[in-house]
């Protein structure tokens, strides 16, 4: 799906009017309308859109159908069942979502390293608190 159509679809799914989304982006409604007609925004705007809709920039651009940022993390951990299981547990915890949110922008190697460190940290803390 091309960029403009995907942006409009995401906006409608979030039940936002053009004006409401434009306000979130600090741009004019007419500028947003231009984006929905296919005009490409700046990279900074794409990152803001990615944060607002919680999807990857590539998804907004229509370059992939991998929608959720978490999917990117799961893909990076796909060859390590233990880390994948840990990630699934962590992803259920609301208090952790903010900390993991940015991971999706990273390379698979870095994601793996971070989730591994998080797992070791969790295990050490569990042990420190008596198991």
């Amino acid at each position, binding site marked *: 799906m091309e960029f403009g159509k995907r942006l409009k679809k995401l906006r409608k799914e979030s039940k936002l009017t053009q004006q409401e989304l434009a306000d*979130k982006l600090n741009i004019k409604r007419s500028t947003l309308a231009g984006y929905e007609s296919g005009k490409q925004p700046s990279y900074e705007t794409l*990152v*803001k859109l990615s*944060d*607002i809709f919680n999807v990857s920039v590539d998804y907004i651009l229509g370059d992939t159908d991998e929608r959720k940022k978490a999917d990117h993390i799961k893909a990076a951990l796909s060859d390590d069942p233990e880390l994948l299981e840990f990630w699934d547990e962590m992803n259920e*915890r*609301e*208090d*952790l*979502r*903010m*900390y*993991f*949110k*940015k991971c999706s*922008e*990273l*390379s698979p*190697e*870095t994601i793996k*390293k*971070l989730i591994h*460190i*998080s797992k070791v*940290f*969790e295990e050490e*803390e*569990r042990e*420190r*608190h008596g198991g």
Partner: protein
Amino acid sequence: MSLAKSLGLPSNLDKLHEWASLHNIYIATENFDLELWGYATKSDYDSYLVLINNRLCYEMQQKVLMHELVHILKHSPGSHPIYKDQYDIEKEADELAEKIIKDASG
């Protein structure tokens, strides 16, 4: 009241590590690619781990550490609307971190 104090941080940043360990916040450095500057995570036991990229210069490491501490103190669910846009949270953490460091350096 200084910004650092209002967030619960020590006004003397030389004592930051000491303060962190008293608050169950572990700070460590790690070699990452430069795509990642810092990272924070929370255990199930309300303790935090903050990792700073060792490949950054000292001043940047201080800024990134403060940025992550602002997230922990101000943006953790319960102390902040969790559905606030991530972009706003990052911007706020950058701005507050810079101001705290500036205040501390006099």
